[in-house]
């Protein structure tokens, strides 16, 4: 057995990311790892590759028969495990050879880097992969596909026996995918094993020998690729959980508050959103789902005026076509955003609850530039109590609050501006179950008061439970719109994956 892991459990500050996970990798095997966002794939990989050192997790694993107790990534690399990340860990300014031998440069007399020797070895490694590139060329002259091959060459030059590839084809063109597949098959023949993480199930079934599905931090099953198909995997990924399916109590929908027509947005020259059209009515919750990178957060951020350049389409808010090109304008027009990463972009961690709560509304709470203390205190207290924020009063420092309470502060700040449309991006990420339920209740209250909500969530069940309608995005375009009653986890997941999946591979 190349790798054998059992009872792996990893916790982070109250959240259990992996629970009693077992995993096995044979020599010369390509083993795919599938699961929703947040299912635990990244945590598992980080654990196996030394990012989480021995002692920070429970359980054990062995590599090639020897127990692994990695203290760092270096230890893992020395044991033959290499990770090819989605964001390639390479240095554009250096040459290909330099990248391949980064940290392990061949030296003459122990001091001088032997460039010629490095380039020769690099050329050899690349040749073994069937590529002929000049190793003295700078890395930035290569396209993403070739850069990835250099990463693989780097891993092989270290005599890695286990390659972990994280969404390797996400940025590749079709022919580059073919090249990669050929190389992986070749590596398999040489006895090198791969753990292949991907959402593209057709690729998974093209290349993998076995598939393991993770869900909510636990192993669901491990299947032989021959004996399964995409539909089976999807069903396992999504599972069955009824609990929150009835969280929503919807008021009768009111007037249309937001209309988006044929929206197309680019960022840094790349087309990221296209042909997006939808309506939103007062009192309604429109859930937006999809995989990471599909454009969900980006859509919300664009509507708030902080991301992307519109190349086509219209956004009509409350009947007016407003140019929403900066947060101040957006807030003034009545649209508010609660961002995904509350610690980095949502809060001023060193300031008090009161400071954070009133920050977006200071214009209304002041006269001639001077803040009216009593009004501010009244507004802050109102939302503090209404949201049930648990802190040592308004003066409590936000950075010390729990995740749930921090989230309430961000939401409170947005709500204080009396928006007509509230956009929530992963509002319950990293929050305990009790606080989650409170936020669900809050969403219901909001819509009962006439607010409209755009909700982005990676948890399918949260989306299903809270939304009146669901819009699925795939790769920047709409891949499905569903009413509450029509949607099932499988149909949503399929829309997220972007294609109608045949029920049986040939």
């Amino acid at each position: 057995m190349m790798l054998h892991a059992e009872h792996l459990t990893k916790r982070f500050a109250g959240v259990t990311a992996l629970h009693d996970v077992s995993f096995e990798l044979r020599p010369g095997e390509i083993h795919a790892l599938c699961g929703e966002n947040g299912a635990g794939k990244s945590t598992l990989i980080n654990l196996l590759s030394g990012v989480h050192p021995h002692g920070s997790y429970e359980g054990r694993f062995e590599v090639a028969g020897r127990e692994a107790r990695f203290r760092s990534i270096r230890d893992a690399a020395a044991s033959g495990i290499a990770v090819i990340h989605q964001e390639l860990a390479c240095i554009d300014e250096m040459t290909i050879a330099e990248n391949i031998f980064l940290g392990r440069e061949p030296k003459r007399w122990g001091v001088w880097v032997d460039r010629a020797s490095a380039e020769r070895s690099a050329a050899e490694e690349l040749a073994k992969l069937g590529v002929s590139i000049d190793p003295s060329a700078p890395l930035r002259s290569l396209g993403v596909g070739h850069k990835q091959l250099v990463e693989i060459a780097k891993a092989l030059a270290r005599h890695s026996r286990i390659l972990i590839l994280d969404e390797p084809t996400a940025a590749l063109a079709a022919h580059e995918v073919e090249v990669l597949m050929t190389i992986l098959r070749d590596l398999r023949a040489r006895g090198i094993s791969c753990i292949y993480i991907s959402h593209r199930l057709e690729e998974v079934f093209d290349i993998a020998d076995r598939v393991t599905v993770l869900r909510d931090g636990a192993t669901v099953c491990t299947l032989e690729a021959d004996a399964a198909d995409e539909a089976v995997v999807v069903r396992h990924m999504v599972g069955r959980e009824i609990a929150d399916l009835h969280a929503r109590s919807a008021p009768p929908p009111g007037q249309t508050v937001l209309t988006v027509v044929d929206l197309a947005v680019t960022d840094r020259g790349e087309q990221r959103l296209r042909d997006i059209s939808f309506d939103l009515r007062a009192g309604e919750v429109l859930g937006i789902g999809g995989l990471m990178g599909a454009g969900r957060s980006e859509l919300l951020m664009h509507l708030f005026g902080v991301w992307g350049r519109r190349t086509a389409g219209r956004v009509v808010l409350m009947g007016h076509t407003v140019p929403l090109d900066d947060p101040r304008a957006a807030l003034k027009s009545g649209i508010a955003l609660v961002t995904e990463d509350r610690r980095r972009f949502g809060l001023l961690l060193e300031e008090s609850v009161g400071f954070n709560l009133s920050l977006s509304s200071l214009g209304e709470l002041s006269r001639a530039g001077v803040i009216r203390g009593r009004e501010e205190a009244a507004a802050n207290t109102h939302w503090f109590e209404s949201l049930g924020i648990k802190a040592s009063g308004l003066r409590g420092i936000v950075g010390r609050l729990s995740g749930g309470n921090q989230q309430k502060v961000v939401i409170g700040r947005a709500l204080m501006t009396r928006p007509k449309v509230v956009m929530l991006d992963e509002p319950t990420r990293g929050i305990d179950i009790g606080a989650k339920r409170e936020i669900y209740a809050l969403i219901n209250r909001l819509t009962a008061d006439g607010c409209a909500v755009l909700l982005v969530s990676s948890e399918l069940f949260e989306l299903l439970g809270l939304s009146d309608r669901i819009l699925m995005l795939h790769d920047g375009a709409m891949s499905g719109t569903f009413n509450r009653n029509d949607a099932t986890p499988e149909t949503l997941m399929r829309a997220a994956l972007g294609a109608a999946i045949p029920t049986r591979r040939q």
Partner: protein
Amino acid sequence: MRSRLGRFSDLLVLLVVWGGLILLFGRLSSGFLSTATLGAVANRIPALLLTATGMTLLMVTGGIDLSVGSVLGLCGAVVGVAMVDFGWSLTGAILLSILLGSFVGGVNGLVSVKLRLPSFIVSLGMLEIARGLAFLTTHSQTKYIGAAVEGIGTAIHGWVVSPAFVVALAAVAAGQAMLSYTVLGRYLIAVGANQEAASLSGVPVDRTRLWAHAILGGLTGFAAVINCSRLGSADPNAGVGFELSVIAAVVVGGTSLLGGRGSVVKSLLGVLIVATLEAGLVQIGATEPLKRVVTGAVIVVAVFADTWRRRA
């Protein structure tokens, strides 16, 4: 906001340090503990106070301005030329100086904000430019103004302090009030605490930073007039090294170079400490280079203490 005790403990520490310095120099120099020294320090303070107030506000946003010394020289030069060559009144010259200072500060701010360059670098360039302009304006010569400008620097009849001192204290009060009670003050803190989060909360980040730069410039403009009044002349070399004293005072006072937290009142104490330190060093006969070494060392120690405190 720290707990009440925390805030006072900072002030207490500063007062203790200041007291310690006074005792130390009192021992080292016989004439240190005297009304004459008090007067000397009191005269040094107004210019430092005004600029330190502005610098505090700017540093709260996470910015910094290294050109204040040169701006001091430039505004002083313009005041000299206006009053001597063009016969302007003192009031007119003061207004001109404040406007010019605000303008230069505004340029610093505009370039930092629009081109998204660190204010450190932009003000470094302005340091050279303003100094060069100061020399150009005066043809490199000192402009002797005389009694017309000395009024604001001399003690008011019957009082102990000069109009300059009163204005400086008023600026401190206004600065602290602004930071604590106005919308702009909140915005300054928010921008320094987390610029991205502030922007997403609807804070006009660019405009806030611009204001901070311009206010500092305007205050420096007034400080330039006070500086001229001390010597009765506009010296194009005025203010060389001034920025170090100002930054030292603000950092010693506890405002962090990283932004987000600051107190004008604590900067006042920082100014007292720095001014006392400088007076003491001259009294014990320290040379100019030694004074700069000590001031630099003080900055390093204060920054270290600040970082250490943040980590704790």
